[in-house]
């Protein structure tokens, strides 16, 4: 791999490069204060703690997090609109929201403090993508209830960059402003970035000559490495992934630096855990599972152990940028995708990660789960590519065996790998169907 000697900008080095020990100490103190606030001000959570036999005094630090009850998205619906607020309504200066699962939106209340924290997190995010006060930041997220627009605006404003709050739509006008005002940093969804890039190319504009774009922070929807490559080529920029959710604050909960190797979590404001979605037990770094967030500085509507239902892994390995903040990998699925095979939790994304890492193997696969003689079986269908193909049986058998071994070591179960013809596994836009479960478990 080519070593990149990139210049890494860091907005708040004191926090972003803090020692892990120091960080855990601060997290512990902030967690204790947050639990106390929540217990005293939110009857629903107090009842939940009481039911679990936990008192605020039982929580001494991060290591006690695991004793706290979870919160769920349904709580935001059931206690809509104000019953999760931990500050008086008069202290709330902003409402943001997003679509819920039923007709009503979910809303979150922010105190002045919460807006400041969120702005700081987004300032770090944009700085990590290279932004300074000399930059021109074009925000194509709508400035509305949805957190994308305000989040990006506040972060860029905090840095002192020149913000163009375009909101969404009118692509021709977006491109005209981008050209005329010399936009250097773009904030939008990855799919809109692709569309912008394609339109720019169709118009005969060469981004490397005619535009000043250098980077983009893209989020609010899942995307892939292939999409990153495409956006970077189309727009001639660095494309960074960002993660956030209204329940926790908004975009900027986690952000990629220019190493583009996982998103740094703003751990002085949120604690991230990975749990086994079936049992709720904490899992160590490196293991895939459900991402759970606890806010430790928010005062308007703190969230304790909020289950995102997103599947990813965490790592606290030091990053090339110098930050010590732990990183989360790409969201590779939802807990609804989880399969239990012979008692082992299996995420299709784990299989995908094995295939992506194996040389020459296409990331297209199909999992076929069955129950034969009351024992679960897992068949992994993988497409034969030219890189994998050799003219001897032993060569192909070795490739097959390698994949089986890797799946065994990553997922922990034996599988049968079947090599199938190229392009025989159905492709679909968006969420591909990756699993056929023939077990009739329902």
């Amino acid at each position, binding site marked *: 791999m080519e070593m990149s000697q990139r210049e890494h900008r860091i907005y708040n080095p004191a926090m972003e490069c803090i020692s892990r020990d120091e960080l855990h100490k601060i997290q512990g103190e902030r967690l204790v204060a947050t639990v106390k606030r929540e217990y005293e001000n939110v009857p629903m959570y107090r009842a939940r703690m009481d039911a679990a036999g936990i008192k605020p005094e039982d929580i001494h630090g991060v290591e006690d997090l695991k004793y706290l009850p979870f919160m769920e998205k349904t709580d935001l619906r059931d206690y809509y609109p104000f019953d999760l607020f931990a500050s008086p309504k008069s202290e709330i200066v902003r409402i943001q929201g997003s679509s819920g699962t039923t007709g009503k939106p979910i809303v979150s209340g922010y105190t002045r403090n919460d807006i400041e924290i969120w702005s700081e997190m987004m300032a770090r995010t944009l700085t990590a993508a290279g932004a300074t006060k000399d930059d021109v930041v074009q925000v194509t997220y709508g400035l509305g209830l949805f957190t994308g627009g305000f989040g990006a605006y506040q972060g860029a404003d905090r840095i002192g960059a020149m913000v163009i709050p375009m909101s969404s739509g009118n692509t021709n006008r977006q491109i005209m402003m981008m050209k005329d005002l010399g936009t250097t940093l773009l904030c939008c969804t990855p799919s809109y970035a692709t569309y912008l890039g394609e339109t720019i190319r169709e118009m005969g504009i060469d981004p490397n000559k005619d535009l000043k774009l250098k980077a983009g922070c893209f989020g609010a929807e899942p995307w892939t490495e292939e999409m990153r490559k495409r956006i970077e080529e189309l727009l001639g920029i660095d494309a960074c992934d960002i993660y956030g959710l209204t329940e926790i604050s908004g975009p900027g909960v986690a952000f990629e630096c220019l190493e583009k190797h996982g998103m740094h979590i703003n751990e002085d404001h949120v604690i991230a855990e990975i749990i086994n979605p079936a049992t709720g037990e904490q899992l160590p770094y490196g293991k895939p599972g459900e991402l759970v967030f606890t806010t430790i500085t928010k005062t308007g509507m703190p969230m304790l152990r909020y289950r995102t239902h997103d599947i990813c892994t965490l790592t606290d390995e030091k990053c090339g940028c110098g930050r010590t903040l732990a990183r989360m990998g790409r969201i590779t699925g939802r807990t609804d995708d989880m399969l239990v095979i012979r008692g082992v939790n299996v995420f299709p994304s784990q299989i995908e990660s094995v295939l992506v890492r194996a040389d020459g193997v296409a990331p297209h696969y199909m999992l076929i789960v069955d129950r034969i003689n009351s024992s679960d079986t897992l068949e992994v269908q993988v497409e*034969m*590519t*030219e890189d*994998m*193909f*050799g*003219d*001897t*049986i*032993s060569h*192909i*058998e070795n490739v*097959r065996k390698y994949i089986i071994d890797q799946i065994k070591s990553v997922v922990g179960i034996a599988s049968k790998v*079947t*090599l*199938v*013809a*190229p*392009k*025989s596994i159905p492709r679909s836009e968006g969420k591909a169907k990756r699993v056929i479960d023939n077990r009739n478990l329902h």
Partner: protein
Amino acid sequence: MFIKQISVFLENKRGALREMTELLGKSGVDLLALSVADTQNFGIIRIIVSSVATEPALKLLRDNGYTAKVNHVICAEVPDRPLGLCELLSLIEQANLSVEYMYSFLRASRGSEGAHMILRLSDGEKAMQVFQMHEVNLFSQEDVDAL
């Protein structure tokens, strides 16, 4: 003196081999040699066509969704008499080489009495030297094209 071979991955599915040969046949590709290696799960088809037809056949296969590659193999003449093949195999064995696979041409060449075996050996370069040293009659790509 190596000759070109195309190998194709086939799923173990009813009609798969017929479909492939139909595709090649309808495009006028003449098969000079063919072998089928199969396991429970998949098969590898190895074919030899004339050198001018090799690239077009490869493209045709790939365009139609097949995984296919060109490799280089040796074609050696084996005298058409008892022990003819055995003598060739002894040479290979004595040189500490092993046969990864072997099959034969579908037709004999003009003016030749022997069978023509296509061989993939553990070390092709070394095998070539051994064969030339022992004056084994080898088929060149031109010989193949003349078939």
